[in-house]
């Protein structure tokens, strides 16, 4: 309950700050919250539901893919050090590549459809997952493996009973970062080969310089993101119960 009131308070404060900034700036480029909320009914006419649906669809798949690729890789780099010594430099070399520059290659391989978008978002978020999972697994103290090894645990058991629970908090951090980044990249992945998606919607309104509607889209995006973060937090509270003292 207390958390809910605090969140509402923060929301109010954020809106106040926004309002203040808008008034101070005094340009259409930063409309006041009131103007933006007034534009909300128009969202329906703009099929906001479908925009949402497509964005969530792309987000969902790309996060699944980056988790499915990134988490095992991050774990393996540490737990299979011989493999890691090869992969680590590869990650460092490829992480900072501007993925947008690879867009032509991705389009060549995957066309213009959703798969190209999902690949792009995955390529951007997977590295964050790899690196933060890797660092989390590295921080697992050696002691937690000892008892299991003495009992004759195989690799899978070491993973299931030590590596995974010990690095779960790190994995959740990684997913949080990936989620935020994935949402923030919609704006340049949803600008080709589609007319749906929140990223498309926001960019399209930007093209029209319809700032109230553009900000309305941004508000929707923020709300969606907040809901997804809340889900992740709920998951975390459940799986990390053992940490509560």
């Amino acid at each position: 309950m207390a958390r809910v009131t605090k969140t509402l308070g923060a929301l109010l404060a954020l809106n106040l700050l926004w309002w203040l900034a808008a008034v101070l700036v005094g340009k259409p480029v930063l409309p006041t919250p009131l103007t933006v909320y007034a534009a909300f009914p128009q969202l329906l006419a703009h099929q906001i539901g479908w925009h949402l649906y497509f964005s969530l669809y792309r987000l969902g798949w790309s996060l699944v893919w980056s988790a499915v690729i990134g988490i095992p890789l991050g774990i393996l780099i540490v737990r299979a050090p011989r493999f890691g010594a090869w992969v680590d430099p590869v990650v460092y070399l490829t992480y900072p590549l501007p993925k947008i520059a690879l867009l032509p290659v991705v389009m060549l391989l995957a066309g213009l459809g959703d798969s190209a978008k999902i690949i792009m978002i995955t390529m951007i978020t997977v590295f964050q997952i790899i690196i933060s999972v890797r660092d989390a697994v590295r921080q697992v103290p050696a002691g937690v493996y000892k008892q299991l090894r003495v009992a004759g645990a195989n690799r899978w058991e070491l993973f299931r009973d030590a590596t995974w629970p010990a690095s779960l908090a790190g994995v959740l951090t990684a997913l949080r970062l990936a989620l935020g980044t994935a949402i923030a990249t919609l704006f340049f992945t949803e600008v080709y080969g589609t007319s749906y998606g929140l990223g498309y919607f926001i960019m399209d309104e930007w093209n029209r310089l319809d700032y109230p509607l553009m900000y309305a889209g941004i508000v929707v995006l923020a709300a969606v993101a907040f809901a997804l973060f809340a889900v992740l937090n709920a998951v975390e509270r459940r799986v990390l119960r053992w940490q509560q003292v």
Partner: protein
Amino acid sequence: APKEIRLKESAAKSSKTTKTATKDVTLNLGTMSAPESIPLYVAKEKGYFEDQHLNVTLQNFKSPKDRDAAVASGQLDGAVSDVVTLAAYENGKLGWKIATGLNGSFGIVSNQPAIKTVADLRGKTIATMPHQTPTFYLDQELAKVGMSEKDVKITEVAQVPARIQLTLDRKIDAMIVPDPFMAIAKSKGAHVVAQSDPVAYQTTILAVAPKLAKQKAVTKRLLAAYNQAVKTLNAGKASDFEAILTKDIGYPAALVPKVKLVHYTQAHAVKTSVLKAAFAYAKAEGVTTTTLDPANVALP
């Protein structure tokens, strides 16, 4: 840190020594990497702006979005833009006006041998930026052969180089791009299906901020410098402006010998019929909510 401006000046010093006298008016103009911006660069390089007591900085933008962000945030006094975007400026209540029409052009480019004319586009995929001037041009071309947007598949690809690559790889059938991308695509084997005439059909403009629009004397001097540059341009040939073409406009150096500059026209008002059509298009596409009056966007 050394200021980037100084770095540029030292690079440009070969052509002209800068005058030290301070200028009366400082202007910040946004340009696009397209041939319609060439006169501005020429005016800058040859010192025509300085002759008019204008201290002009040219800000090059790679994408219209960045330019429009700068326009909306009031960072620019003028910008190379186009008529449909101007409608968006009106929609955003920015109050920008047209100083002069420019000589930009778009082309429909394809790499499918079967597509020779606009009529061949029926049912084909065309990459462009929807609700923008390129699509406005496409609409008009289609209308000429009795088709409409419904007869083709329009797909958005915001990143121009990606658009070209997709066309070259035949992932899409055709695209609308401006120069110099048209030239680049041609050099890679694509062919131009149709191209707007940069003199007769003018949708690109030099737009100016309301503050500058009100200063009649200054816009006059600006356009005078522009006209001077147009003269110089029309008197010369492409290779005379190699540095501008490669560095600022973005032609690959290898293509410069093949570039044929258009015949640039002196500063002039955009035809009302074009404006009317563009504004109607903007209304139809939902870029604006009301139909704009061409009279409102002319310089006072």
